[in-house]
């Protein structure tokens, strides 16, 4: 190979690498980083991107150079030199990629092991996923239930995920971690938030008609604020939005269970999957039956809500306060 060709190849590769690096650097690729696990993920991401840029630049340089330099002149019927192979080159382009993927594999395995293990004693949160809502239970805080995920900053939280009906998947882009909730088995996920704020919890596994709306919020608080929040919550047993002792909060039940799919202006809900409840007026028995048994794409809630909760919900929806 002539020296000129090598110089040209290297220059093209450098230009391509510079352009792709600029794209990688100036475009805001990754979402805001709000967990320790994301730091590891981002490290693997950028190391892999760097390796990818190297290979892309090599391929682009050879293609561009060949396309310009070896383009045939019109009416040139000749053949190229009969080069059948080059053992040295072939060994090289087997060995170098093997080396690069080994680096990625080792780094990934280390980061994975770190991200799997909580730092110190984790806060345990039980996550129940169902069509199309999330429910979070805090067994060590007296069994508080919530529809948003409240977690303290700088402390590992271990999510214990269960699914009631079909597959769901828990993801907060800013935390990076993701885990399916699988009916019949229990899965776990560790997150260690590093920034206070509000983030989106997204279901990423297709779970039916309301999949796109199966969203809630993850709220990262300082330890003091988290403790204060935990103290304010009714303790134990009751379902989302209401304790079993006092008044049942029908609007809370609606927000937790129905708002993902149904529009109802007085609850501030704007779900698009099921019928718009502002435009629907049904007799209380029909509403109760629909809630208990489901149907028409709607899952049944008969075994998820208590009789009192269903009654409160029916009253809330039909406006009949007897």
């Amino acid at each position, binding site marked *: 190979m002539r020296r000129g060709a090598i110089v040209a190849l290297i220059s093209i590769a450098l230009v391509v690498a510079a352009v792709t690096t600029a794209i990688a650097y100036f475009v805001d690729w990754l979402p805001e980083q709000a967990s320790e696990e994301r730091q590891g*993920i981002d490290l693997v*991401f950028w190391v892999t991107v760097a390796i990818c840029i190297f290979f892309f630049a090599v391929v682009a340089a050879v*293609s561009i150079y060949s396309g310009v330099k070896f383009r045939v002149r019109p009416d040139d019927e000749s*053949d190229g030199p009969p080069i059948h192979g080059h053992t040295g080159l072939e060994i090289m382009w*087997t060995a170098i990629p093997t080396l690069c993927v080994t680096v990625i594999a080792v780094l990934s395995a280390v980061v*994975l092991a770190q991200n799997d293990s909580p730092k110190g004693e984790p806060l345990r949160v039980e996550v129940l996923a169902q069509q199309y809502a999330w429910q979070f239970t805090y067994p060590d805080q007296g069994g508080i239930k919530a529809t948003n995920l409240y977690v303290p900053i700088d402390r590992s939280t271990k999510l214990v995920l269960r699914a009631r009906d079909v597959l769901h998947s828990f993801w907060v882009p800013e935390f990076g971690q993701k885990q399916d909730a*699988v009916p019949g088995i229990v899965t776990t996920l560790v997150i260690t938030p590093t920034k206070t704020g509000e983030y989106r919890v997204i279901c990423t596994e297709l779970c039916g008609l309301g999949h796109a709306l199966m969203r809630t919020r993850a709220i990262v608080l300082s330890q003091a604020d988290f403790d204060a929040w935990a103290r304010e919550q009714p303790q134990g047993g009751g379902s989302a939005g209401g304790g079993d002792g006092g008044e049942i909060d029908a609007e809370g039940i609606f927000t937790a269970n129905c708002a993902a799919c149904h529009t109802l202006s007085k609850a501030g809900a704007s779900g698009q999957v099921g019928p718009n409840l502002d435009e629907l007026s049904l007799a209380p028995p029909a509403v109760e039956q629909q809630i208990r048994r489901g149907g028409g794409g709607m899952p049944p809630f008969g075994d998820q809500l208590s009789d009192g909760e269903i009654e409160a919900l029916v009253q809330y929806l039909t406006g009949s306060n007897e």
Partner: protein
Amino acid sequence: MSETTTANSHSPHHAPHEPPKQRHWLLRAGWPRAFWMTGLFFLLGMGIVVGLRALGGYEPYLDWEVVIVVAALTMAPLGFLSGLGAFDYWVSYAIGRPTAPEDHSAHGAYSWKDYFRINTDHKVIGIQYVTTTIFFFLAGGLLALLVRAELARPETDFVDTQTYNELFTVHASLMIFLFIIPAFAGLANYVLPLMIGAPDMAFPRLNALSYWLLPIAGVMLLASFFFPGAGAGWTNYAPLAVEQPFGNVFFSMAVQWAGASSIMTALNFLVTIITMRAPGMTFWRMPLLVWANFTTSLLVVIATPFIAASQFFVMFDRVMHTNFFDFTEGGYVLGYQHIFWFYSHPAVYIMILPGFGIVSEVISTFSRKPIFGYRLMALSLMAILVLGFSVWAHHMFVSGMAAYLRVPMMVTTLLIAVPTGIKVFSWLATLWEGRIHFSAPMLWALGFVTSFVIGGLSGVMLGAVPIDIHVSDTYFIVAHIHYVLLGGSLFTIFAGIYYWFPKMTGRMYNERLAKVHFWLTLVTFNTTFFPMHLIGIQGMPRRVATYEERFGDWNLFISISSFVLGASFMIFVYNMIVSWKSGPLAPANPWRGMTIEWLVPSPPPVFNFDEVPQVVGNPYEYGVKGARHAILNGDRAAQVEPVRTQ
């Protein structure tokens, strides 16, 4: 089948009055018989269901769900195939009637009507395959545009959610099962026997049967729209699949028919390649397209039964109340994913290895150079075949499977990039110092290399578990699969169609239109799919009809690009139709290729070769003075030249 013989009788209702020379038009193999036999078999299936239920005392006797599965989705297609004549020979043989001797009267196509019959000529079947798959490609593409129409704005404003879920499900299934996999089978069906110097495939009747299973599968998939239910994604994960409306069984059964077709074709290719190579065609002299189809066929016969099982289990859970995946009855939900991906990961190689073969042919021919590192190219195919069976769980890094499986599966996944990389570097080295002709097939092949490199590198990123955990089930995945399947497989299919169009039709296509088609597709493909990487990493999940406002601008841009991308295929369709009808006549060897298909006229005679070709050298000896790959028609002159072997 032959219309001149009474021997291939199948129907028990034999015309009593006379043994006619030509059987009654209702009893003759063909569309009229297919029509009434479809109905007859449907009624038979219905009778079986009602009869057995009545015998067992299961109320109600007439359960339409069971009737549809047994009568409409199983028996009726069998009736259709019998009526068309796909089983005539075997049935005659089985019941002891004289079989129709293979007089080759069913070979060749003399009018467009011959493409709508059972035809045992591999060249006719190849064209049947390619045109049918292009039809389903256009149908699948239309569904993709409807998906993009919905996604143009963040709200749900175009279709309802169930319809939307079915749009992307049927889009993906049509593209995978009715386009990419059978399109490769079709191209290979046409050129592979020619390339190895064989007069036909090893089992011509099986070949015809495997083609005719395809339209059945395609119609079933499209029909699932009218019995809604195929809305659980092409992966059809349990338990959502079992919970879907009834139409989900259409999806399950369509996959069975397409899978059966795929397995039969693969067996046919394997036997053809192993037993029917021309004298002198050793394994190390086979063109890389033949190598590619050899490895692909091995993948198909080993892996495809697994997806058949996964779809049967899902359907049985619904129809027969089994509990394979019902966790409340002890079923194992993750079992579905393991079985499904044990097929569907090798399936991604089923969808790309034949493309590797096509690209190797095209790049060598249009660079006028031998393929660089021929043996390593063939061996890397075999390496991909072996490694391909050890990576399936990388689709399940976040699924909750046994945690220890993740690192070994990551290692094999990353390692499989190495043989793939070898192929890319060898193609680039083939270009080096070549005499590169930028004709349409070459443009598509080079477009493939660049797109596939991007898709391959994003595949390496996905192989790293921590990155995969972040981006799995987001638009990053959608971007990756379209870079490898659209920029990968589809581009190689176009390369193959343009490359062999003169051979298949005997006419040249319009080069200018082909180039416009290429550049328009290349640009809009990248503008459509590259931004999806970004919005995926940022937090947009896949399979949603509505999304956050902040992704609105990118999605609008993507949708507009995708409409132009869709329009670019109209140029291709126009070019193909007009050129096939009235393009300039093609010479036998327009690209000055060396492999055997270019030694026969375009299109080849009905029996391919007047005499058996003699293979005397390697397939890509461009630039080697006097080298020949094969000799035909008593051309002994070349034999005196020294034959170089690698």
